[in-house]
Each structure stands twice: as C-alpha cells, then as structure tokens.
C-alpha cells in the first residue's frame, strides 16, 4: 500500500482539511473492498503468499480508516462544524466502518480456517466476491455524491441495491450447488462453504444497510 498523503499544509483551511480527510476515508473503504477481491482471487488460485500479503494490507487499511474516522469525529465536534447534519454524517462514517470490518473478517477467516474450495465452486466464489465489491464501490460513489451532488445520490443507491440483489442470487446458487454436490463428502465441509459464502455476501448486505441510511440523509439534506 502506498504511503498516506498528508492532508494539507498550514495554509489549508479547516473546512478543506476535513473535506480531504473525508475523501481519504472513503478511499480507504474502496481500497478495503478491492483488496478483499484481490485476496480472495489469490486464495482461490492457490497463491497463499499473495493472499496473506493482501490480508495484511486489508488490516492496515482498516486500522488507518479507524484512526481517521476518530480524527474526523473529533474535528467535527471541536470545530463546531455542520451542527445540523453532524449526527447523520457521523452515523454514516460509522456504518461505513462496518463494511471495512466485514472485509477484514472475511480475509482473516480465510487465513485462519483455510477452507477447501472445490474447483466447481471457484467461479461462483469469484463472481460473488466481485459482485459484493461492486456494491461497496457504488456505495462510496453514493456517499461522495451525498456531500457534493446530493441529487445524484439516488442513481448510485439504485445500483447498490442492484448489486446486493445480484450477490444474493449468486449466494443462493452457490449454497445450493455446495449442498447438492456429491463431490463434497462431509456435511461439515458443506456448512463451511455456506459460512464463507454468507460472509462474503455480508459485504453487499452491509453496503445496502448504509445505502438505506443514506437515502434518508439525502432527503433530509435537500433544502
């Protein structure tokens, strides 16, 4: 991961500074999701070292995001900024954090439990991960729009809902395949597949949960 950029010099106004910090926070969420996609793909390809490296990167991004979120929260209160919508913004940042948490959980649990993914499920797992990540990336677009072009929030939110629904469909298909399969002999292994499948899809579910909140905040923000 590239080194974090410093947010602004001494001539940067407080407003500009916090704006930059928020943008960086949303980038962290994007990065977390994209890194997870990379990690899962490497895992499925059997590249354990590459996977472990990505897992570490996700950890680092999650930690940096946490720290940044606390800093933004502190700044919003200390500088008495946006008193009217401060609660909404902080709620948004906190629920976005859940998305990153899920990404971290998934990669960590892949690393700990090293599930055996049979070849006939690899494609489905890849597709599920890609779709869930698309939901997250669309969500951060919606969040950015909320701050700058509030009337565009809805179009992004519609896409978040679309990808979440797609992820649900793939999730169900994957589970059915796993449980109907004769190739996976042990019931416990079938359950293991279900667990990971649900974990990955949770990323899209969390994205949708944030989207639901955002839809309300966007209505409140319209003058």
């Amino acid at each position, binding site marked *: 991961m590239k080194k974090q950029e410093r947010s602004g010099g001494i001539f940067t106004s407080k407003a500009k500074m916090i704006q930059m910090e928020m943008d960086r926070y949303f980038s962290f969420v994007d990065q977390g999701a994209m890194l997870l996609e990379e990690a899962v793909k490497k895992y499925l390809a059997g590249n354990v070292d590459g996977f472990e490296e990505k897992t570490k990167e996700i950890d680092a991004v999650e930690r940096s995001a946490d720290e940044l979120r606390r800093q933004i929260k502190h700044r919003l209160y200390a500088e008495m900024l946006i008193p*009217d919508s401060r609660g909404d913004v902080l709620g948004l940042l906190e629920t976005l954090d859940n998305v990153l948490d899920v990404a971290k959980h998934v990669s960590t649990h892949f690393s700990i439990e090293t599930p055996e993914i049979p070849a006939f499920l690899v494609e489905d797992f890849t597709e599920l991960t890609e779709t869930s990540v698309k939901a997250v990336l669309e969500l951060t677009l919606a969040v950015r729009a909320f701050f700058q072009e509030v009337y565009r929030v809805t179009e992004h939110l519609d896409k978040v809902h679309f990808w979440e629904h797609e992820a649900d469909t793939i999730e169900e298909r994957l589970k059915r395949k796993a449980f109907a399969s004769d190739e996976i002999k042990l019931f416990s292994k079938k359950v293991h597949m279900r667990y990971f499948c649900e974990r990955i899809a949770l990323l899209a579910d969390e994205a949708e949960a944030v989207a639901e909140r955002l839809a309300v905040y966007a209505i409140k923000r319209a003058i």
Partner: protein
Amino acid sequence: MGFAGLFFLSSGLYMGWSLGANDAANIFGTAVGTRMIKFRTAAFISALFITIGAVVSGAGAAKGLGDLGAVNALAGSFIVSASAATTVLWMTRAGLPVSTTQAIVGAIVGWNLFTGNPTDQTALTRIVGTWIYGPILGAGIAFILYFIVRFALERMHIHLIRLDKYTRTGLIIAGIFGAYSLGANNMANVVGVFVSASPFVDITVMGITFTGIQQLFLMGGLATAVGVVTYSKKVMMTIGSNLYKLSPVTAIVVIVSTATVLFLFASQGLQDFLISRGLPSFPLVPVSQSQAAVGSVIGISLAKGGKNLNLKLLGNIVMGWIMTPTSAALLCFIALFFMQNVFGQPVQM
C-alpha cells in the same frame, strides 16, 4: 423630563423590549437554535442593526402610523402603548403569530374613538391593506428565492462542509439585513405613538443637534437591545426547534424575504425612486414581521409542492387580523376611560 414622563414612557420601553425579545428572535431563531451562530453574535448584530435601522430609516413608518391618529398627550400615548403591549402579551401566550403592528393600530383607533378624533380612513385602509399583502408578498419572495437558491446549489456542487461555512456567513448577512429592516419598519410600533407627545427636548452638543425624536428612537433602540440580551435566547431556542422547523439554508430564504417585505414598507429612498419613475410605490407603514415570516414559510412550502403546507398557520394569521386590533382597541378605550376619569390625567390635548 420628570418622573411622570419616565413612567409614561415605560409602556413604550416595554414594547421595545418585546420587539427585541420576540421579533429579533424571529431573525436569528433557526441560526441560534441549530447552533450555526452563537447567541452572543446574534444578540450583538440584532441590537446594533435594529438601532441603526430605527435611527436611519425609522421615521417613514412612524409617520405612516402617525397619519392614523396623532396621540398628542403623554398619558394617552402611555395607555395606547400599554394596551398594545398587553394585547401582544396575551396573544403570545395564546400561541398566535402576533403582530405588534396590529396591536398598536387597534389601540390608536381605540384612542381616536375615545377622544372623538376622526380615524383617517385612507391611512387605515393603507395600513390594513399591508396586513394582507405583507404575508402574500413574503410568500411570493420566498417562493422565488427558494427556487433560485435550489437552482444554484444543484449546479454549484458545494461540499457539505464548505456549504456549512457559506451558510453561516449567509445567516449573518441575512441577519444584518433582517435586523436593519426590523428597526426601520417596526420601531414605529415602539415609539410612534410618543412622537407627537415626546417629552424629550433637542440637545446640542458641540454644535451637533440631537433632536427629541432621535432621542426617542435611540431609547427605543436601547429598550430593544435589552430585550434581545435578556429574553430573546429563550425564544430563539423555541423557534429553532418548535414552531416551524427550517434548515439553515431555508432559514436564510425566510429571513431575506421577511426583511425585504419590511424594507419595502420602510424605505423612503425606494419610495422616492419609484415615485420619480412614475411607478406604484409602497406606503411607508409598519407591517407585521412575524406574519411576513409565516407568509415566507408558506411560500417555501408551496415551492416544495405544498405538501407540508400548514393551513393552521394560515388560519392563525387571519384570526390575528381580527383578534389583535379588536382586543387592543377595546382595551385601550376602557383604559383611557380610567386614566381620564379615575386618575384625572389628560389623554389628549
């Protein structure tokens, strides 16, 4: 000026206090209620610009009120002002968007009736007319302003944090305009009835003459400042969270449209300009700030599609048109009777 003079001025001081406590709160209510602006800043701006507005441009509306009936004895002025003040107090308790203007007009008519002075029908029609077009004008201006602001915000892509900064500046500028217009238009309600019976004499200090009328307006301004400092915070907190909830941006629209209405009915310069161009002008009379504000809020509701339109507010305005002047006139008539016959004070020259 003796003790009696001061005593008789007290009702005017109370009216000034009430103007500061209630009407100034209308200007900065949302700003302070939503903590966008510190109360201290709001209080300072209100007190300063209400006084400036009163001294610079207050005479026009005061004359408009004087045309209705020139209360020319101090005891009479006291009763007129006190009856109006009491009516305002009652109406506020009843939760109606009360108008100081309507109270004072009713009380003056009461004085006219009691003393047998004719009420100038033209002046009365002119003033009563503004009660109707004040809120309508407020609604119209707010309606248009709302669309302009929304159009601009949709196209300028201002970040929420930056918008917050601009909104604070906007609230302060709008507040200055609001306070100035309030002083210019509504100080007439506070000191207008004392103009013909002013106990102040001209003072000349180092070659500068400070007229009795100016001293009167200054005193009104000071009473208003006291009202702002002592009581308006409480009212601001109520308006910011209770009566009608506005976002800080819509609050700017309401303040500006309300202030524009008051300004139109108070500016001598504008009137001269319009007349010189042969255009119809606005009469210089005091109009009700709270009703112009309610009109503005209704204008915004309409601009939003009329879904949140609170018809009860509209009903309250109409009720205020009837209740306020009637009660003030009746109260004034009765009080004048007591002042003249029980306390033996002359209520007219």
